[in-house]
């Protein structure tokens, strides 16, 4: 899309989108003659579109699958920020004060544990909230937490991280996962293996669920795409990353 509407169009992951949108906004202010369009669609969409050449830059919150690599061998993956997946519950849920092991998280999401009382909480049914099929966040979660066990099919699926936050903040029984960028006062993260998600714990590698966020180009980034990626990697760009709640690259 957008060959004609903007000088540069970036499409893909909804996780990455806030960073890129904000960066584009600032960048265009500095370069009033350029316009950068940002579209969502999810990681898969972004990868596909850049692969097909309909956009110059794709955004992804996961690495390319082998299938995608096969289809588009000439894609370059540029890391622009670090994200980590936080397991979140409603603030009124006292589970937020305890810590879970990865295995416990897995049992919760696979449906083995269905009631908070099994975790020492009150007698309330656990309501699982997960992302939709194809989401980068979901595939990261599944590969890092679930270890080949399926997420319970009783989990509510949400098409965006914001929707997960909205659901969890509105339901004291809910538990879900989302990128650290989406953390705010309406939900609370749970410590995993005793560690809460934060810039420090991620950088210290003590929080187990972190990942990189990428902008993908066809071949080496060049032209406006290259300049924009360079801008993101600059200090000013990394400040935006932090402002949006994600973790700067080293």
């Amino acid at each position, binding site marked *: 899309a957008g060959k*004609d*509407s903007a000088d540069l*169009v970036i*499409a893909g992951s909804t996780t990455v989108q806030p960073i890129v949108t904000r960066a584009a906004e600032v960048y265009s202010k500095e370069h009033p003659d350029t316009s950068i369009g940002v*579209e969502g669609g999810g990681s898969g969409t972004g990868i596909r579109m850049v692969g097909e050449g309909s956009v110059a830059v794709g955004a992804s919150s996961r690495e390319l699958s082998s299938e995608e690599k096969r289809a588009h061998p000439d894609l370059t993956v540029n890391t622009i920020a670090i994200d980590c997946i936080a397991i979140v519950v409603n603030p009124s849920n006292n589970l937020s004060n305890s810590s879970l092991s990865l295995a416990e998280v897995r049992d919760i999401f696979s449906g083995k544990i269905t009631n908070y009382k099994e975790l020492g909480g009150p007698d309330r049914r656990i309501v699982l909230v997960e992302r939709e099929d194809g989401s980068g966040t979901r595939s990261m979660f599944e590969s890092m937490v679930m270890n080949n066990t399926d997420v319970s099919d009783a989990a509510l699926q949400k098409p*965006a991280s914001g929707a997960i936050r*909205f659901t969890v903040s509105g339901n004291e029984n809910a538990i879900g996962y989302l990128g650290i960028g989406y953390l705010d006062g309406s939900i609370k993260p749970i410590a995993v293996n005793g560690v809460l998600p934060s810039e420090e714990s991620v950088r210290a590698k003590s929080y187990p669920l972190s990942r990189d966020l990428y902008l993908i180009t066809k071949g080496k980034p060049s032209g406006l795409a290259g300049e924009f990626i360079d801008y993101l990697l600059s200090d000013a760009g990394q400040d935006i990353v932090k402002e949006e709640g994600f973790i700067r690259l080293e």
Partner: protein
Amino acid sequence: MLSKNADRLAKIWLWLSALVIILVLLSVLGYVFINGIGAISVSFLLDMPQNNWREGGIYPAIVGSLIVVFVALAFAAPVGVGTAMYLTEFRTEGLVTRIIRTSSDALNAVPSIVFGLFGLSLFVFYLGDYTGGPSLLSAGLTLGFMILPTIIRTSEVAMRNVPYAERMESFGMGASKLQTIRNIVLPGAVPGIATGLILSIGRAVGETAPIIFMVALNPTIPKSLFGSGNTLTTQLYYLSMEGISMKVAFGTALTLMLVILTLNAITRVFKKRLSRNLRRC
């Protein structure tokens, strides 16, 4: 006396049912209004979004919606009115009209998401090179397909409402078919056709599902038909899903609803005109 009581009870129930519906409407309208009125202002309508949608306005979405609706109408209005004219004036009831009318009805019934699938595969994947893939043009045409049956139906009704006898009179005086259409049928049908078009605009403005795969959350002003863009409905969907800013989301919702209310008011005026015209029956 039994029947008297039954009568009274039934009437209470009927009044209640109407009351419930009014309450439902008021709660939907009121909810959107209360939450959205704070966000709305002239600058909200005419500014670009800022700070990652958290601030600023929804100008691109308004422009996008206008373009999409324009494309949809540009396709569907001539085709729809033409079809209606063909059905009423050039064909007597028969296999052909039945087929056309049935396909129009069927088209009207196709679920909106199926239009989305269809638009995606036809305009984005199959004709992507000509339409710019997921562009405003693709979205507009998809909506055009969707509102076509409405336009056919309302125009046909409008033309049929012009009394058959008036046509016969015209023919009886030696007028040709085209003269009759121009002088008798169209003037009589205009208010009805206009009502249908406005209804369809409302439908096109409010639809989300058919264009969701073609219109993304895009904070730029579309520069051409072949470019991507934003519409009020898709923006509302993404904003509320991403939970970026419920304020902007409700502002968008209220804007959308005001548009619909306005269109509704306009049709009301047309309908009055229409009923005035129908006095002849």
